[in-house]
């Protein structure tokens, strides 16, 4: 449930709220779960705000965060 709420806040924040809201949602989701929605959120932010042929920083950043936090999740979080 918390995971869904964070994702919803992130997607709504991408449209209405300051930049740090979706970015925080990506980081928090990726820290606690194997969050595919964090990558989708990154993609959503880039699709909304980035010109077509520019470098997709937020999408690739979200992918990096999701995979870089994978060892920490595997080590410390309950399965």
């Amino acid at each position, binding site marked *: 449930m918390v995971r869904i709420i964070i994702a919803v806040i992130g997607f709504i924040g991408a449209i209405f709220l300051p930049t740090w809201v979706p970015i925080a949602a990506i980081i928090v989701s990726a820290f606690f779960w194997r969050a595919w929605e964090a990558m989708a959120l990154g993609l959503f932010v880039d699709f*909304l705000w980035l010109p077509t042929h520019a470098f997709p920083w937020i999408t690739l950043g979200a992918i990096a965060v999701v995979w870089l936090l994978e060892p920490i999740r595997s080590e410390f979080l309950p399965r």
Partner: protein
Amino acid sequence: MNNRRQRRNLFIATALVLLILAIDFFSGGTLRALTRQGGSALWRSANGALSRAGQSGFFTSRASLARENQLLKEEIAGLQEEQAQNAALAAENDQLRAIVHLAQSAPGLTAPVTSSFKASPYGTFLIGAGSADGIAKGSIVESADGSIVGRVADVSAHQSLVVGLFAPGASVEALAGGTPVVLSGKGGGNAEGGLPRGARVAAGDPVFSPAFGQRAIGVVGKVEGGIASASTKIYVRSIVNLESLSFVYVERTQ
């Protein structure tokens, strides 16, 4: 086992995200145009509802209205809604009237701003006009008083993405106090640049840009280092407060 399956699913999701990114890239931004259309429609409806609620005084006068009888309450609410709509239309008319004079100096069109200014990490925003209205990539976007706001970066049929003049990472050639300077955008309508030693610039000086026909693009807000210093750093802010804009004027490229 479950762990391994979850990891495999995450890998598939990653591949899917990259695939969508690639499809959009090679299709010239088809998918992001659809995303923007949806996001923009959501923002407009929410913004319209919030602005009507704010102007009707619903949140501030609710307690007092509750004390009145039901009949008067309904009547007042109806009148307030009407008044709020009139006020919103009057404000809109004022902005549009101010924009009219721009059309006489440069051919173009007025477009509504259809997104938030603060939500974009890239200093961009959406306007409700596109290629069907004659807007092209690179068109100059201005405020009602003719101040430069940015340039069109992406165009779809009825919507365009505008990159703010001082978007993060953007650089603009400018003249501050008659001295050439390259300003680096910092977002939020702010930029900074370095001037050579001896440049005479003071806070409040206007900044012009040859890239925009020598028009004013900002005002020097702060100067660090003086005539005796090795270099001078200036902080520039845009003339117009982006968040106050409801409409912009887009010059048609010839």
